[in-house]
């Protein structure tokens, strides 16, 4: 297979609804996830999307779910297999075995997991996907974004400061004991009991705000790029959800992309749609092999009793 080399997928993602990607809670108020940056000789906290969340939502989750459906794995995965596919798995055994063969097999069968890496029970396998953080497009981040975007130029005029993109929300969770039909529904209703009504609030990044983020794929083949693009398409097709509170209409991102490095070693430009089709064909052709690999890599644990 011809190697493509390194490929970078740039994203410009616009918030289609409030983004509530949180870092913690203060009282009953959620605080936006922020990162410290240096701006005009000061350290300031600017909202950002974590690389962890972006990696999971854009690539791992949709990509793994596609494999589950394509390989007819619903209801058939062990917890270790599901963890490997959906969360990257974890080391639970000491490394005393030689895994070279099983890793080599995975590299051949699954471009998605070649990209993502993950952990077998006794060995971590590195991936080739590196995800940036989601940088809010604002004055404070302008220099960094320009450096990452290279030949895509930012407007000459200054951008709005980050604070302009931050707003607040407040919701109320009701108390079933205070419903008008409570007495006819609940057996042990106690009218003297304090109300469980919960008011919760938090910060949000406003609809229309934009983020820059990217994926760098190091030394990858066309199939891995196809796997990444396929997952991105699935993520976008499902509203590009990021952060919490998607259940109440938050966290929708609409992304546009541009790609650096779709030229192979022979100077031929690859078509992105073609790469996706090739990946899908590969998955279809290798689905039995992938199921067999999962069984081999995560065999049922034998009881010692």
């Amino acid at each position: 297979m011809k190697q493509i080399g390194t490929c970078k997928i740039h994203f410009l993602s616009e918030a289609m609804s409030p983004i509530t990607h949180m870092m913690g809670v203060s009282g009953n108020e959620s605080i936006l996830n922020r990162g410290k940056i240096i701006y005009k000789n000061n350290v300031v906290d600017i909202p950002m999307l974590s690389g962890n969340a972006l990696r999971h939502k854009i690539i791992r989750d949709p990509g793994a779910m596609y494999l589950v459906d394509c390989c007819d794995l619903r209801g058939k995965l062990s917890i270790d297999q599901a963890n490997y596919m959906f969360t990257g798995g974890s080391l639970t055994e000491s490394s005393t075995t030689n895994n070279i063969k099983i890793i080599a097999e995975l590299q051949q069968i699954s471009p998605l997991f070649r990209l993502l890496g993950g952990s077998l029970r006794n060995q971590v396998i590195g991936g080739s996907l590196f995800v940036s953080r989601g940088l809010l497009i604002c004055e404070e981040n302008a220099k960094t974004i320009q450096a990452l975007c290279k030949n895509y130029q930012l407007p000459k005029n200054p951008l709005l400061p980050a604070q302009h993109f931050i707003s607040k929300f407040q919701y109320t969770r009701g108390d079933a004991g205070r419903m008008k039909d409570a007495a006819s529904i609940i057996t042990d209703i106690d009218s003297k009991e304090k109300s469980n009504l919960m008011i919760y609030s938090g910060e949000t990044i406003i609809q229309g705000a934009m983020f820059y983020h990217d994926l760098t794929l190091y030394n990858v083949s066309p199939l891995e790029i196809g796997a990444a693009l396929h997952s991105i398409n699935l993520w976008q097709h499902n509203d590009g959800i990021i952060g919490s509170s998607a259940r109440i209409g938050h966290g929708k991102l609409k992304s546009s992309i541009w790609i650096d490095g779709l030229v192979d070693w022979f100077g031929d430009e690859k078509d992105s749609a073609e790469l996706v089709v090739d990946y899908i064909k590969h998955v279809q052709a290798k689905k039995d092999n992938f199921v067999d690999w999962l069984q081999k890599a995560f065999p049922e644990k034998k009881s010692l009793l």
Partner: protein
Amino acid sequence: MEMLSAEEFRKRLADVVDQSKTLSEEENKEIKEAAINFCSLLPELFSDDFDRKTLWTRIGNGIISSIKKCGGDCEEFINLSLEFIKADPGKTAENNKLELFLSFIIDKSIEWKVEFLRIIEKKYNVILVYARQIWRQKVGIK
């Protein structure tokens, strides 16, 4: 999946270019002073229907709700704020300081007015402290 050209990228980002940068430092200072000045006028027009002890609470609540409801229109913000404290239309019309304030802001640029509303929304608690200070000086309370 939409592929983005460099030109389209720049066009999209034009939506988040800061217009207020055209305002000078002096203008930004003037905006903050105008916000404080406006809030300091409200006690004079506060309705007698309300308990005077709730003066600044009600003015604060009026500012917050009016900002949300005014849709970026400066005059509507002022009108809503006056409604919230049930300002008497007669007294409002005769209030010279309010008239001066309105004639001061009427010719200001859109950027100035946008910043005026933004600063009030973002810093209303601090603005109320300064406004109360001015009001106390006016009525001779130490």
